[in-house]
């Protein structure tokens, strides 16, 4: 069979959109940030969990603890979106996959927003 189209026309619209590594790269960056934030956050959280109300609010009104907690919650949620998106893309196909991706982003976004609000409120009011 003879191919009437030119080589250029045959590949037009296919192939790299030149952003294929973007998601991969951003996930590594959030991972590096979390590797630094996680030990500090776990340290403060392990102390705070189970303490009384006043102690918890005192712990998270300390700038260092508040900044680490805010950073950890926000970057963890970003990393969660990136990771869960890969899992959904792997296992849920077609329209259902799109619905899952949207629902997941909204839910994790809600968790991030709630966490940020709560941590800032404690930090600024205690």
């Amino acid at each position, binding site marked *: 069979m003879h191919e009437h189209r030119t080589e250029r026309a045959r590949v037009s619209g296919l192939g790299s959109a030149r952003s294929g590594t973007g998601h991969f790269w951003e996930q*590594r960056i959030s*991972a*590096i940030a*979390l*590797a630094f934030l*996680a030990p500090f956050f*776990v*340290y403060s*959280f*392990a*102390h705070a*969990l*189970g303490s009384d*109300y006043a102690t*918890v*609010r005192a712990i*998270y009104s300390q700038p260092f603890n508040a900044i680490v*907690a805010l950073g950890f*919650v926000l970057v*963890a*949620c970003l990393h*969660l979106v990136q*990771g*869960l998106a890969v*899992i959904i893309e792997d296992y849920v196909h077609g329209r259902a996959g799109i619905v899952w991706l949207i629902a997941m982003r909204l839910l*994790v976004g809600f*968790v991030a927003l*709630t*966490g940020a*609000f*709560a*941590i800032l*409120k*404690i930090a600024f*009011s205690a």
Partner: protein
Amino acid sequence: MSDTKTVTRAGARPLSPHLQVYRMPLNAVLSILHRITGAAMSVSAALVVWWFLAAATSEGYFALVNGLLTSWPGDIVLSLSVLGLWFHFCNGIRHLVWDTGSHFGRKRVRQTGILAVLVTLVLTAITLFVI
């Protein structure tokens, strides 16, 4: 002639890895665990944020949520979260090292896998019993 021979030989061979009887190498198990711990920590994240929201709301609501998270079912969930977090942390560092293109040899992968499991256990023990 050679075609029929190939078909017969291919037909005699197992066609799939037979997952039920296949003993997965350590690294395959760790890879699956990386995904499971990552996805499972979405529950942990929601619980931690709920706790922060309670601490930002009122003393009474904080007592309720803090009590739930430190009750025995809460303890189990959060202890597993700590285990999952440190595993994902250790194995994630292996992934970051691999992304630079090093430590990819078969022996090296097994060694760092065992190391990641050991460090996970140590960090979990420190978090749960020391801090």
